[in-house]
């Protein structure tokens, strides 16, 4: 079946901002889909509110709209672009739901747009719980007894009939948001009411719990002719009960006999056939470990996190094939790019094991509830490939960047047996390490199986590791033992530490195996490798066969997605690769994040899917013998490699390891600034709480406290009192007792951010971004506006000059990101990072200046003067752009939502428009602020904010919002002549701020408090309540003022104009 003849132009909806449950995997899928469609000669229109993505790049799609993902905006874009088809299955739940709504309301039909990938009927059969159940029953597939209810009473009544424990799953929510397992009526009442509220259609499913069964997933494909295949099976190490996004997952399924495997495989194929999906589909099953009984847990008729993992685990590009199928091709008409010889209509055969390990944000959120359940909490994941489970697991653990290089978690050593057992039963993110600790202490596999229901096979593998660790500690380190440990995945650093032996036997030569989809049955020329110590190497012969004579560059990626280091670094890494290729290099990529475009095997010339530790990196370098390596685009993960690689004599392209150190070492950087006559806030470096207290009192409160060498402001706090210093230092020193801690005088003022390219002689600044929130809110959590809107000409010039001098003095070759604060009309530097930053994709897209490319060319010695984009500050572009952060607070119970120096957002959206106000409105709309002036505003602010609160409150009052405030704030507002209703604090009365919120009278909260974080505090409780109720909660006066200014303009969604960003980077001649 060829391409559908009526198709010329296809619209693709992305998945929006990165939130927990919907992350980079959809950028990978979307980018692959765009490329696949363009290969077929189709014109691709892309809509996504997320500017950090690769898909929203002029190089990937023909028309790019970074616009709010609302029905109104999508309708406008469809009317403007007149696409023939809408691909519904690539943009995650967001894309699927929006496609479904557009189809259901008849808009698509009316405008001649065909729904591709999954029809309306297919989507509804998979997404509507009742229809799903009916469909499964019609083909004889067992589902878990369940009922859809729309109120708590029915939930309780049904639970009586199926008996507790029951699982609650809200309809149409991401990553299981709002779900949970209830053991009794009390718990069910709480979870059900929460789930009902969070479900956009106020539906929850109450389901019999099969917690403890094996959780098995199949990724299946189907084409329009009805051909069906399974791409990959996956087995969760954690049995049913832990969300698959929070589970350690192995591929292929490892503990199923062929009978069980084929039973589930056949079921998955029957399901995709019954649903009529044309593309990829994910089927999750629960399998009773003691019988052949199984049940279908969930089906996603679209690409998913699991399909991204399956694609990387097998080499089978699911999203690419799904896109081709959606436009009419059959599976056997799509070529398997890996072998080049076979078609996409086959099932990959693996000759290795893949382990996925989640990346959780609990290192940032000290007070978050770490218990894992039906609600996903991980922000990202790493994948590891090995020839044994042990090896893959070890790579996953050290690749997850959790300060571990073995499964031995030191703090568990101190636990008593009872404490350890309690820890295991708590089922939190550290459970696997607790299980490992228990195995090390001699607790039996049988006992641990009883406690956790983790299959004995997996426990035995962990036991093997524990046993190796014991041998390394106790036995003489013979060469045999050393090589055995290496094959099991132990890094040299761990072997040295465990054996106490500094000198190791001669290293095994670097050896890599190829991922070829076919278990070596066919000769493949895929440059997709993973390390396999002690086995024969396939990479060197491959390099010899494919030598082009070009120099090689190795690019290090950014590892798992986490708060502070997101998809924007993958954007930069991928663009770096493209630029290096254009500059005549062969490029090898090293990364371990399966969700990304950078780990697509055809992004670079070669892909090494391995951890980003110095030892692993050196092995790749030993194999590739590169002219140089690039560490400047992979965030902190890659930049951390600069020093060890530099010390090992590896050439680092761009800013030298010494230049990087100069920017990060407090003393050296201060001296440099002083020599340049550039100011920065006074500060000290301390190591103990006592020193911190002295520093704080000498500098004068408030002070900013943070560990050096961090990204995303982990454990960074604004301290107003000695108590705050105590709390923060405690947290920092617990995480790392050796940490250098910076204590800086906090300067209140306007925060500005600059990304610049420097070639060693000149500097190009694409634009200056100004934050809406004053300094003190982490730049990643601030609303950032381009171009800066209230910077004088004089100050602009000064800023440009400071940037130029600082970049040159640091020896920057490539990118540098500098943050400034203007305090009392004076410019201070906050920090400078000679690497790619969070804002690179955003500023590149809105200015049309390809920053990464210019940076790469600068690194390689070209001069900015010759690149055609000028030097100095670029003239502002035609549009204003506002970046608005997006949070995942509803997924992370216990986390205080008050913004501060520690970054909390998981993603961002961008509003682009001809005026700043419209851009801000678009940004806020895209970020999900439901802005309405017909409900009340509850204000409770800390004393230090009271002097500024009146004009902001007045702005809301003038819009007709009734004002509510707690006593102190209310008094301030009355003094300013405002009418306000006083509300009691939680502890003051039974009628209080919480009950007011629950009453539904309040549409927005402004809450700031001097203290936060600890969940028991009133202010934190109030803010958490707002999250639960979905009431916007502002925690900065500046955000509140900005929002008020927008509300005043009375923007309406219908009046917004979509902006095609691709046109900005297109040459003049091609502009429409």
């Amino acid at each position, binding site marked *: 079946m060829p391409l559908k003849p009526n198709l010329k132009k296809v619209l693709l909806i992305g998945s929006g901002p990165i939130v927990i449950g919907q992350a980079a995997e959809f950028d990978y899928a979307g980018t692959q889909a765009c490329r696949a469609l363009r290969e077929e000669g189709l014109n691709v229109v892309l809509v996504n509110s997320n500017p950090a993505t690769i898909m929203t790049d002029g190089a990937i799609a023909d028309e790019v709209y970074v616009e709010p993902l609302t029905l109104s905006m999508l309708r406008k874009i469809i009317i403007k672009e007149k696409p023939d088809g809408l691909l519904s299955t690539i943009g995650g739940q967001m894309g699927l739901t929006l496609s479904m709504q557009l189809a259901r309301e008849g808009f698509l039909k009316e405008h001649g747009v065909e729904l591709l990938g999954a029809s309306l009927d297919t989507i509804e059969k998979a997404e509507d719980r009742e229809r799903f159940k009916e469909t499964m029953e019609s083909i004889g597939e067992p589902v878990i007894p369940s009922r859809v209810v729309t109120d708590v009473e029915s939930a309780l009544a049904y639970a009586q009939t199926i008996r507790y424990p029951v699982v609650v799953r809200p309809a149409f929510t991401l990553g299981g948001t709002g779900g949970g397992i209830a053991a009794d009526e009390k718990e069910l009442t709480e979870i059900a009411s929460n789930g009902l509220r969070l479900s956009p259609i106020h539906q929850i499913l109450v389901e019999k719990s099969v917690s403890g069964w094996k959780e098995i997933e199949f990724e299946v494909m189907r084409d329009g002719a009805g051909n069906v295949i399974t791409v990959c099976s996956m087995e969760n190490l954690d049995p049913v009960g832990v969300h698959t996004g929070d589970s350690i997952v192995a591929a292929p399924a490892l503990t199923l006999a062929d009978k069980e495997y*084929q039973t589930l495989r056949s079921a998955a194929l029957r399901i995709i056939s019954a649903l009529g999906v044309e593309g990829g589909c994910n089927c999750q099953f629960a399998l009773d470990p003691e019988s052949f009984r199984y049940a279908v847990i969930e089906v996603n008729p679209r690409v998913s996190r699991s399909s991204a993992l399956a694609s990387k685990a097998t080499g089978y590009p699911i999203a690419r094939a799904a896109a081709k199928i959606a436009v009419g091709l059959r599976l056997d008409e799509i070529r398997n790019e890996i072998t080049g010889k076979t078609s996409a209509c086959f099932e990959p055969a693996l000759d290795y094991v893949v382990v996925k390990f989640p990346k959780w944000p609990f290192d940032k959120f000290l007070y978050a509830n770490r218990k894992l359940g039906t609600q996903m909490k991980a922000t990202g994941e790493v994948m590891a490939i090995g020839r044994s*489970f042990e090896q893959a697991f070890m790579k996953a653990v050290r690749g997850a960047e959790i300060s571990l290089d073995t499964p031995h978690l030191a703090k568990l050593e101190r636990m008593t047996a009872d404490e350890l057992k309690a820890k295991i039963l708590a089922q939190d993110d550290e459970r696997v390490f607790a299980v490992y600790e228990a195995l090390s202490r001699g607790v039996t596999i049988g006992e641990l199986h009883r406690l956790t229901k983790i299959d004995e*096979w997996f426990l*035995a593998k962990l036991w093997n590791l524990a046993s190796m660790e014991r041998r390394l500690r106790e036995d003489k380190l013979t060469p045999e033992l050393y090589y055995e440990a290496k094959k099991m995945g132990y890094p040299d650093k761990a072997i040295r530490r465990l054996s106490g032996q500094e000198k190791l036997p001669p290293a095994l030569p670097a050896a890599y195996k190829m991922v070829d989809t076919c278990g*070596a049955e066919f000769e493949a020329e895929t440059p997709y490798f993973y390390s396999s110590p002690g086995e024969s190497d396939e990479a060197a012969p491959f390099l010899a066969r494919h030598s082009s004579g070009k120099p090689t560059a190795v690019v290090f990626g950014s590892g798992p997605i986490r708060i502070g280091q997101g998809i924007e670094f993958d954007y930069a890494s991928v663009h770096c690769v493209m630029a290096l290729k254009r500059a005549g290099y062969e490029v090898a990529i090293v990364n371990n994040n399966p969700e990304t475009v950078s780990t697509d095997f055809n992004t670079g010339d070669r892909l090494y899917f391995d951890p980003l530790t110095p030892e692993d990196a050196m092995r790749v370098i030993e194999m590739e013998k590169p002219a140089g390596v690039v560490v400047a685009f992979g965030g902190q993960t890659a930049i951390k490699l600069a020093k060890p690689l530099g010390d090992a004599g590896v050439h680092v392209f761009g800013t030298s390891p010494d230049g990087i150190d100069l920017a990060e070492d407090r003393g050296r950087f201060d001296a440099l600034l002083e020599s340049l006559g550039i100011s920065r806030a006074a500060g000290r470096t301390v190591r103990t709480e006592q020193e911190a207290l002295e520093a704080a009192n000498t500098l004068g409160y408030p002070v900013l406290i943070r560990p050096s060498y961090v990204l995303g402001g982990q454990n960074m706090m604004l301290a107003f009192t000695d108590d705050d210093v105590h709390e923060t230092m405690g947290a920092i020193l617990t995480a790392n007792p050796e940490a250098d801690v910076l204590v800086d005088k906090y300067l209140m003022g306007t925060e500005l951010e600059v990304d610049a390219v420097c070639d060693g002689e000149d500097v190009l600044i694409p634009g200056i971004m100004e934050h809406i929130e004053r300094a003190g809110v982490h730049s990643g959590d601030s609303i950032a506006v381009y171009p800066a809107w209230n910077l004088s000409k004089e100050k602009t010039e000064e800023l440009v000059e400071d940037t130029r001098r600082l970049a040159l003095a640091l020896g920057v070759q490539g990118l540098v990101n500098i943050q400034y604060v203007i305090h009392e009309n004076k410019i201070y530097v906050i920090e400078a990072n000679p690497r790619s930053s969070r804002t690179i994709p955003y500023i590149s897209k809105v200015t049309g200046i390809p920053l990464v490319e210019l940076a790469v060319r600068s690194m390689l010695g070209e001069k900015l003067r010759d690149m055609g984009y000028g030097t100095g500050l670029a003239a502002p572009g035609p549009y204003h752009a506002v970046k608005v952060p997006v949070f995942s607070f509803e997924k992370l119970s216990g986390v205080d939502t008050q913004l501060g120096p520690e970054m909390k957002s998981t993603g961002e959206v961008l509003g682009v428009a001809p005026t700043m106000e419209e851009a801000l409105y678009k940004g806020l709309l895209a970020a999900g602020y439901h802005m309405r002036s017909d409900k009340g505003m509850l204000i409770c602010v800390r004393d230090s904010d009271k002097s500024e609160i009146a004009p902001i409150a007045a702005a809301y009052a003038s819009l007709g919002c009734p004002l509510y405030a707690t006593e102190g704030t209310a008094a301030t507002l009355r003094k300013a002549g405002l009418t306000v209703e006083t509300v009691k604090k939680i502890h003051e009365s039974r009628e209080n701020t919480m009950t007011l919120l629950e009453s539904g009278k309040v549409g927005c909260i402004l809450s700031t408090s001097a203290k936060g974080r600890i969940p028991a505090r009133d202010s934190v409780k109030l803010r958490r309540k707002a999250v639960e109720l979905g009431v916007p909660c502002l925690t900065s006066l500046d955000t509140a003022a900005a929002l008020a200014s927008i509300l005043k303009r009375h923007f309406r969604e219908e009046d917004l104009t979509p902006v095609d960003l691709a046109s900005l980077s297109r040459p003049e001649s091609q502009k429409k």
Partner: protein
Amino acid sequence: MEQPTTLLLENGSWFTGKGFGAPPDDGTVGEVVFTTAMTGYLETLTDPSYCGQLVVQTFPLIGNYGVIPEDFESTRPRLTAYIVKEWSHTPSNFRSAGDLDRYLREQGIPGLYNIDTRALTRLLRDYGVMNGLLTTQAPPYDEKLLAKLRGHRSPRPVPLVTRQKAEHFPNDGPLVVVWDFGAKQNLIRELLARGFSVLAVPSFTKAEEILAQKPAGVLLSNGPGDPVDNSELLPEIRKLFDAKVPMMGVCLGHQLMALARGAQTVKLPFGHRGANQPVKDLETGRVSVTSQNHGYAVKTESLPDGVALRFVNCNDGTCEGVEYTDAPAFSVQFHPEACGGPRDTGYLFDRFAACIKESQQEGSPCL
């Protein structure tokens, strides 16, 4: 166990690992083949079609779910040796009756593990099928041994694996004879599941004896070895064609039916062994994923009149199945009975059943 053990190949390359299962002896020699199936090692071990071969599993972790006798495809393993990357000391499955090492020891099958099975597979892929020898003798090895290895020819395997006397599986429905050339048990299970009573007969059974049973259909089973070694069977098969009895052929059965009608077979470079082979039905255009285990194929261009190509392998275009336009018969190279592997083509047994029914009613060809 744990004894250093080496696989020596006829081209002189060797892989040293550790032994498991039974110790090898002078007779641990044969063709080395690999299978890419990720599950179904018990079915592989007990598939009589592997008779005389040293079987390599490309998936590195074998034995995870232990030994489950009810999943066996025949009474005992017929392969010469079993080669894996890693076997599981701690299998886990609710039906498991023990571990692989013990089972292989009990069955007298030598095993080799802890070698780079991927490197071995690549070698077999690039050089084609080779003879190999499993030995505890340490390298080096002299040319005399290699010459002997190259010259090694396993005895004709079908007579070794076929049942020695007929076996009846009673049921309510019409009788189907399974002509056992090394039949997998699931062929019989699939027929029983469709109501047929089954009479499994040895390979040396004459056509007259089969026809004397007045079977509603005859299924020619899978089996090991080079199909042309079984020339005495071809006239017998022709008699079945002449009798217009409905026939279904699987794997070796498929090849023998084609040979009986004058087609030729060819040795494949390294065979098809695994659970992921895509096969296209030329009539419907549908592609199915199939379980396969064969080193020879019917040459498509040699198909005589009356034999139409119906299925082809999507990867290499080889013949995967034919239908007979002048007889109520069809045959496939792959394994619709699965075990191990995908069950996607199990519908062929339904087709056979329909063919039998139609034939009983009208005496017309079935496809």
